[in-house]
């Protein structure tokens, strides 16, 4: 799959970016470039287990203004696997609680001479704002409901490992589209690579306006299920709602949960994905989450590979 030299000495010619802020602004070639590099790193590190030294001497700061275990550890591991050092900042332990603006916080961290800042923040656009205000590389680890670019990339990498040709595949994103950063990154990444995207969920959480982008919008999961090659089951973001967008979790599960009965009506080779953390019994029943079609844990491993690729590409474009 990859044409990268095993020593990762040269950046692919298509890659020029110092930051990764979203997938919307990337070209299909740039996305493919990251996915190819991720596959190469995964192979070169024995499935993200062994270490390389391509980023030795570099320092990465994890700047998380929102709670995270998975993504933060994934970035840390990716950096360490490539020989970089990491520094950890979280909102509870820093001066953010004392009223400092997040730009000031980030500038202070940059002044400690870090090479890259990985930022997670509850507000859309904060990575973009940082990229304008800092000299170092900025990588988004999600900005509120806007985008989660490395999640989108790891989802697509996971699909691509099973279905090398994305063009013509039908991928349904199911659930809380309105508040999902994973949805937005998947929408841009998948459509740029030629896949067909269906957004499916309650009308209060899926806007018909997505049809303006040539994306199918469906309210009824059972109608679209037989056509889907991949289902990505998004978590309901209860914490981002003022009033509940549906009457009860029970009713949501009735309409949208992937369970044994629905699996029986799906394609034989359907892939079941979830960005996690999953709510077992809400969007997915345990038998499906742990079943043979589920690639949920592969997604987690691929997250490290994708983040190694992103760090390597952006930090070297920086030089």
């Amino acid at each position, binding site marked *: 799959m990859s044409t990268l030299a095993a020593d990762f000495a040269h950046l692919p010619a298509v890659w020029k970016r110092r930051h990764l802020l979203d997938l919307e602004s990337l070209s299909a070639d740039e996305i493919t470039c990251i996915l190819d590099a991720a596959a190469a790193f995964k192979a070169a590190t024995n499935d993200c287990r062994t270490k390389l030294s391509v980023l030795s001497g570099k320092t990465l700061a994890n700047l998380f203004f929102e709670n995270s275990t998975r993504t933060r550890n994934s970035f840390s591991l990716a950096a360490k696997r490539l020989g970089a050092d990491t520094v950890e900042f979280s909102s509870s332990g820093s001066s953010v609680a004392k009223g400092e*603006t997040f730009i000031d916080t980030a500038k202070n961290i940059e002044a400690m001479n870090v090479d890259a800042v990985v930022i997670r923040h509850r507000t*859309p*656009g904060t990575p*973009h704002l940082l990229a304008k205000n800092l000299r170092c590389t900025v990588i988004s680890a999600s900005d509120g409901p*806007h985008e989660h670019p490395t999640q989108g990339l790891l989802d697509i990498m996971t699909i691509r490992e099973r279905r090398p040709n994305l063009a013509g595949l039908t991928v349904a994103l199911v659930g809380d589209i309105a508040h999902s950063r994973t949805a937005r990154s998947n929408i841009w990444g998948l459509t740029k690579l030629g896949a067909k995207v269906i957004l499916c969920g309650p009308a209060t959480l899926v806007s018909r*306006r997505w049809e303006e982008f040539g994306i199918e919008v469906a309210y009824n999961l059972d109608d679209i299920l037989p056509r889907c090659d991949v289902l990505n089951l998004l978590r309901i973001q209860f914490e981002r709602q003022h009033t509940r967008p549906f009457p009860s979790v029970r009713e949501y599960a009735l309409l949208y949960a992937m369970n044994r009965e629905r699996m029986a009506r799906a394609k034989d080779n359907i892939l079941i994905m979830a960005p996690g953390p999953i709510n077992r019994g809400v969007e997915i029943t345990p038998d499906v989450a742990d079943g043979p079609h589920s690639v949920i844990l592969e997604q987690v491993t691929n997250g490290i590979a994708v983040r190694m690729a992103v760090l390597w590409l952006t930090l070297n474009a920086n030089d």
Partner: protein
Amino acid sequence: MTNLLIEHGKIAAYDVLPRGDEKIIDATGKIVAPGLVDISAELREPGCEEDETIETGTAAAIAGGYTSIACMPETEPPIDTPAAVEFVRQKAARAKNCNVFVIACVSKDREGKELAEIGSLVEAGAVGFSDGSRPVQNAELLRRALEYCLMFDKPILNHPEVLELARGGVMHEGRTSMVLGLAGLPAEAEDVMTSRDIRLAESTGGRLHLSNISTTGSVDLIRRVKQRGVNLTCSIASANIALLDESLREFDAHCKLSPPLRSRGHLESCLTGLKDGTIDVIASGHTPRASEKKMQDIDLAPFGMVSLETTLSLVITHLIRPGHLDWPAALAKLSTNPARLLGLPKGTLAIGADADVVIVDPDAKWTVDPKQFKSKSSSTPLVGKELCGRVEKVIVGGEVRF
């Protein structure tokens, strides 16, 4: 060629020959107009002096061609007592920039619960009533206020917005907010309240001014109700004649405004409303907020921009030059109409009127640089934009102030 004589602070005569002892201002090739009148500027004093003071705000007004402004009770405490009205008037007199008229609170402490002492506030000099950025949500209270104000012939200025539909929003809800994942302020949050307010104005016969409308729905509703002869006026903020919600693509908190920058369809409806007379007034929408507040992330940053110094140029650039409005129509919306609906003896160059005059070079181009602003705040979505038309001279009561 016309001569205009100003004497004893009044417009004295036209087309008289100089006697030789006058100060002569040569305005050849320039526009000489009645000084602009703003219907709803925020001066932030008392209480929020980090954003603006009466002195800096009125200096900004003069620099922007305004000779009179009405200031909103967007202060801490809000202007809901005669003493607070008096404080603003005295500070303004001491600053000696432009004339300042006070819009006082509709409700005590702007809480939307009980009427403020409207009669005493009129006595102290209030020219209109508004709860500013906290529109009156309680329909019964607004109905009472409209009725009560009939006794004093003063307008109520209400910005139509249903809070439960707008809660948490930072930008116009539409295609752009959907892609950016930013919480939306839907057009219907405005339309629903516009509709309610119109009904209350119609049934009470009270004087209602809908402040800062921005949607197709509002323009259509107001056009229809005006055709029925209902006594109702409305204004649009200067940013909403020129900028679109797409400006938020860069997540720039300087573009976070209330009402929000809307999509193209809404902007075009507003332009039509300006042309056919549905929209009576172009307000500056001057809502200064300190730069440290605007530096926060876009969810936390407050709504607002400084605009007293850019409104006239924005009108020239986006309405007059493209042919949407001619100079007389534009000046009516910037000066004559706001003066009339606040009951001020301003907005005219008739003989005997106060000599409040602005002289404008309509062709001068300039680039917006907030460092040059007189305002204490600098937040504007217009940074670096080239605009047409500059204020050359401003005369207040016969005195050259700029």
